[in-house]
């Protein structure tokens, strides 16, 4: 599948930046998978195959802390978005090795389950739908404030859209005269673990459901980073101005299966990075040699980071009592 260069209005610099970040995210994920297969990690789940959608999303976020910045309720395949926002590789490895130095959860949560208050990234959970109902609250707060141009972004997969929280999100964000500034996305990879999309969906697309609530909706090729960038940019600009929801269904690939539970082996589906590289070479923006160098550079970096992070501190048993309640770790409630 070739990308359509005529529809591109991105600068050469932006195209190369997107490519670089996509590779960085992919190499990080592939190293995490490698760690799992080495027997050095308990579990892997992540986002290889979603880079073409997720990297542009990360680049378009108005990141920061507080109600006047964008809020993100992401799913566990969102590493490319966070890499595009500036997350370092170290953070990913710390989640994989469940280290005490993992700022997101201190070694409590799975790999790629981030929580980053400085960028309004709400804690990512293993539950595939809850983010859709939580995002309503943040978008509601943003809508209430006059002059606030920020929005809430909520992402998930097609299986997550089966759950009632997805319906809640559509209902609450489209109430007459109370519409919410929220970007609702489904990265549809056609699978819910081992159950195919076609077995479970009677509707033509998930976007059809959003349309029923008068929500402006799009179905796009999630393997085309240019298309994704343009659609996301237009949608985000519109939400900032009109304070109304927009829904995007991006058809993406799932390149390593559901998770390590299904083997985490490479699957022959369209690869957004390979397609994009063919486009960049054809456009003479980059050579094969330069592409190879980028991959090698990130692979080498990832290896070094792995070795460094493995030596960092593990969480201690006593830490289970921390953060049950806010700033009350030493209270009487736990003295059994």
């Amino acid at each position, binding site marked *: 599948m070739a990308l359509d260069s005529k529809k591109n209005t991105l600068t050469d610099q932006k195209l190369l930046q997107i490519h670089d970040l996509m590779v960085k995210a992919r190499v990080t994920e592939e190293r995490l998978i490698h760690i799992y297969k080495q027997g050095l990690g308990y579990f892997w789940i992540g986002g290889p195959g979603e880079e073409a959608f997720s990297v542009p999303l990360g680049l378009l976020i108005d990141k920061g802390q*507080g*109600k006047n910045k964008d*809020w993100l309720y992401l799913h566990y395949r969102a590493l490319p978005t966070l890499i595009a926002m500036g997350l370092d590789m170290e953070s990913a490895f710390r989640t994989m090795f469940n280290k005490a130095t*993992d*700022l*997101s*959860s*201190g070694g*409590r*949560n799975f790999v790629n*389950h981030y*929580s980053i*208050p400085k960028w309004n990234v*709400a*804690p990512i*959970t293993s*539950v595939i739908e*809850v983010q*859709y*109902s*939580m*995002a*309503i*609250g*943040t*978008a*509601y*707060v943003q809508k*209430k404030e006059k002059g606030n141009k920020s929005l*809430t972004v909520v992402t998930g997969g097609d299986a997550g859209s089966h759950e*009632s*929280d997805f319906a*809640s999100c559509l*209902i*609450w964000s489209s*109430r007459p005269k109370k519409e919410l500034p929220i970007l609702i996305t489904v990265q549809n990879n056609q699978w819910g673990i081992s159950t195919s999309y076609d077995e479970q969906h009677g509707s033509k697309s998930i976007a059809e459901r959003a349309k029923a609530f008068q929500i402006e909706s799009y179905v796009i090729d999630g393997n085309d980073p240019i298309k994704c960038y343009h659609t996301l940019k237009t949608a985000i600009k519109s939400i900032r101005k009109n304070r109304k929801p927009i829904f995007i269904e991006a058809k993406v690939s799932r390149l390593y299966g559901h998770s390590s539970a299904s083997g985490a082996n490479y699957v022959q589906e369209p690869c957004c990075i390979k397609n994009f590289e063919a486009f960049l070479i054809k456009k003479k923006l980059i050579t094969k040699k330069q592409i190879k160098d980028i991959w090698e550079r990130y692979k080498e970096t990832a290896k070094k980071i792995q070795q460094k992070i493995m030596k960092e501190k593990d969480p201690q048993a006593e830490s289970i009592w*921390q*953060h*049950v*309640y*806010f*700033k*009350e770790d030493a*209270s*009487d*409630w736990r*003295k*059994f």
Partner: protein
Amino acid sequence: MATMVQAIRMALHYGEKHLEVKDIFGQDVGPPLGGVFTATQGLKTTWNSPLDERGIIGTAIGIAMTGERCVCEIQFADYIFNTIDLLKLAGNNLWASHGQFPLPLVLMTPNGAGIHGSIYHSHSFDTWATRIPGWKIVSPSNALDAYGLMLSAILDPNPVFYLKPKALLRVKSKEKIPGEPESEKELKERIDAPIGLERENWKARWPKLELYTVPLGKARLVEEGTDITVVSYGRSLVLCEKAIQNLDISVELIDLRSLYPYDWQSIKKSLQKTGRILFVNEDTEVSNFGEHLAYRCTKEAFYDLLVPPTVLAGKQVPGIGLHPNLESATVPQISDIKKEIEKLVHSSL
């Protein structure tokens, strides 16, 4: 004197006026109804949500995530079961994020039996709530505590579960709410919405209320006694109060007020004095929260016990039947409490 529901309403008003509560919402919470039990009539920040319990809890979490304070309502505790994983998530949000995302929210819901509410308006959620770490759980037994616990819940930076004992909502207080007008009539005229068309343009005229808090995690000693300790909360506490009247036994009665964190020191101190302890609540008896308390008594005060610590709770049946004979056979009644106290005091190890 104010009823419990008036006290809750006044506390919510105090919360939105002085404690930065910006949203009070749920199904039928806003005008015109102001809550099915009228707990939210006349308030400034109320609004009606879709009939969607998961949406209500999710939205409350999202609002709290930004640091704003809100109070949400599930219309009856019986309808909260489809939100249980979101409740789990609200409870673990701080812990899972390594202390980074506190959730200052209050969830209130009418709880328990006593109004002939049949299978889906009588259930208790007490024990279920205590199984969800990260929440604080309170249930008042009188109007003044209802006021003070609500204000403490609003001020707390953690998610707080506020179980409203629905059978007590219309019960008048024995003590004044700080700032409450002298006459009941005046209070009613000021804060109870009129029925009919007048309601459309009605606005509450709130009295000048004062801050009054009941600390979370602290029990109240209702009656001092020497023969037996009875520990209860919410509606059951009132039944216990009635049960011990005219009883020829010296009962020490403790109102737990907070189910979690609970006031273990008060329970233990009393048990060490009396040697006998009875826990009373309405939730079903198998894996009941009271069983945990009884276990802890055995574990930490075994040599002080004169009789086995005992739990009097609801029957382990799938629902609470509508007919009074069915309801009274299902949840503890005054006569059951009396009998159990007498049995424990007159038996020995």
